[in-house]
Structure formats: structure tokens, C-alpha cells
């Protein structure tokens, strides 16, 4: 889907979220030169097109007590990766699930999913449950818990024209 310059500017402005004012769409629009109605229409169109996966309150799990953030990586046979990816996504404790390229020999894994939990043991049990339910007992996997968060913010796609670094 092609975006106009103003639409790209709106996407970038949206990176910081809605301003907490009575008329946030009008305010966002003012920043990029769109009317309130146009701003609402563009966001609606991005949602319908699936470019926006979700629009609403974005919580920070860590601050809400979800201290165990595990990135689970799997070496799934290519022929099964799509099926497994879809099955993983049906579990409500799986918050993200992506296929990514293997980089042998250093990185043999092609399926990534994120599991957030309040306790490490619970998360490890959930990973076990994924493996058992989907018949992946013999599949190589690793669980990478996060230990420190250096930065977390929404993706700001830097769609604005290139600025001097």
C-alpha cells in the first residue's frame, strides 16, 4: 500500500501514541497538515489494510509484574514452519511469533516466539506445553530470557526524509 508524504508523516507521529487531550486526532492532524476527519480516515484505512495490527492501549508487561520475558527459538523443519507458527500463535501466552532466516552455522533457528510471564518456571512450563502439544519434543530449541532492558519504545519508522545522522 502506497502512502502519501502526509500519511507517512502521520505514521511517524503516531509512533509516540495519541496525545492525551480531548481531541487527539485533531491534534495529531495539526502536526502533519491533515484535518481531524482525514487523520481518522487514514488510521482506519491502515487498520483495514492490516498495516496496523492493533490500535489501543499498549501496556508494558515488565512494569505490570511480567518480569519473565522469554524469546523462544526453534529449529523447525521448513515444511512444517508455517503450520507450527500458526499453532503457536493460538496460545494466549504467545505474544509474538515470527519466522526468521537461519544463519548457519552460528544460528540454526528459524521460528521465534515471545512468551511473557510473571514467573520463570511458569514460562518454562508454557514452553514445554508448546513443544508437547505440537509434537516438537525432538526439535532443537533455546529459551533466551531477557535480563536487562536497555530501551523499549514503539517502532518509529523514521519515514521522514533522511536526516543527517
Amino acid at each position, binding site marked *: 500500500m502506497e502512502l502519501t508524504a502526509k500519511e507517512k508523516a502521520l505514521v511517524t507521529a503516531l509512533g509516540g501514541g495519541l496525545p*492525551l487531550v480531548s481531541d487527539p486526532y485533531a491534534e495529531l492532524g495539526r502536526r502533519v497538515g491533515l484535518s481531524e476527519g482525514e487523520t481518522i480516515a487514514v*488510521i482506519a484505512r491502515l487498520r483495514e489494510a492490516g498495516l*496496523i*495490527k492493533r490500535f489501543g492501549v*499498549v501496556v508494558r508487561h515488565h512494569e505490570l509484574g511480567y518480569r519473565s520475558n522469554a524469546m523462544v527459538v526453534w529449529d523447525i523443519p521448513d515444511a512444517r514452519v508455517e503450520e507450527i507458527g500458526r499453532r503457536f500463535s493460538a496460545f*494466549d501466552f504467545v505474544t509474538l511469533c515470527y519466522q526468521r532466516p537461519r544463519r548457519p552455522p552460528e*544460528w540454526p533457528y528459524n521460528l521465534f516466539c515471545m512468551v511473557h510471564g510473571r514467573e520463570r518456571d511458569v514460562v518454562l512450563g508454557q514452553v514445554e506445553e508448546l513443544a508437547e502439544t505440537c509434537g516438537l519434543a525432538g526439535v532443537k530449541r533455546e529459551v533466551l530470557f531477557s535480563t536487562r532492558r536497555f530501551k523499549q519504545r514503539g517502532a518509529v519508522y523514521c519515514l521522514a526524509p533522511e536526516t543527517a545522522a
Partner: protein
Amino acid sequence: MARARTELERRLLDEFQRDFPLEPRPFAAVAERLGVDEATVIATLGRLKDEGSVSRVGAVFRPGGVGESTLAAMAVPVEDLPYVAQLVNEYEEVNHNYEREHRLNLWFVVCGPDRARVEAVLRDISTRTGLAVLDLPMVQDYHLDLGFPLRWN
């Protein structure tokens, strides 16, 4: 430490993760559903943002749908990690940056308007640190993001 939540906070955190009202006064629409006034909703969201429980009220974009992004990983000697993490953080193209328990101990997301910009950032980080950067762009996204059901103890 997560403190006890008011009923209003829980409902704001739980029930409005998706399909946020797209109308001129969205916070008033939320307020009506919760039986409070608009100013209370705006003030509560502001407080949740200030304390870090809420990152923003806004969009979660599909990776690769708008612009380009990749997941990058580095194996950083432990004593250099604070320095390298700080260096990586300074790029506006980097949004998430985590230490993880693995030989590859630094994981971050780089996004930009196009693939060339993403690669330029990875190259720059590699040149400045003298360390290899693993580039793992998304091939397929299987997860339909419906938000995250919170379990309150």
C-alpha cells in the same frame, strides 16, 4: 514493583488494547463505557504512562508493513556490554534493546524507511564496535496481535 490497581486502571489496561475508538473524542467514548468522565480517563492514562505501565495509546504496526525492520543480535564481551548497549541505544532507528541470557547477549530491533537504511545502521554499529552483528529480518509474521490478556493476582 506493581502496586495494587484500581478497578478503573485494570479496566483501562485490559479492555482497550484494541479497537480504540476512532472518533473525534475517543477518551470521552472510553469514559462513557467505564462510567466516569473524560478528564478522569485522560488523567489516569497519563499517570499509567508516567509510571511506565502504559507505553502509549496508539498503533502496533505490522513489521515490514510500513518501512523495514530487522532483529539484530551481537555477542558482546560482558565487560563491554554497558558501553555497547549505550552505543546501540543512541540510534533513533533502534527501538527495543535487551540483554538476554545467551552467548548472543544483546538483541535489538532496527527499523528504517527502507532496507538500505537498516543495513547502514547495522554496518555502522559493527564498524564502531568491531563486533559482528547478526541480521535476522522477519520472513513471516504468524501472530495476529489481539493484545495481551492480563492476569491480576
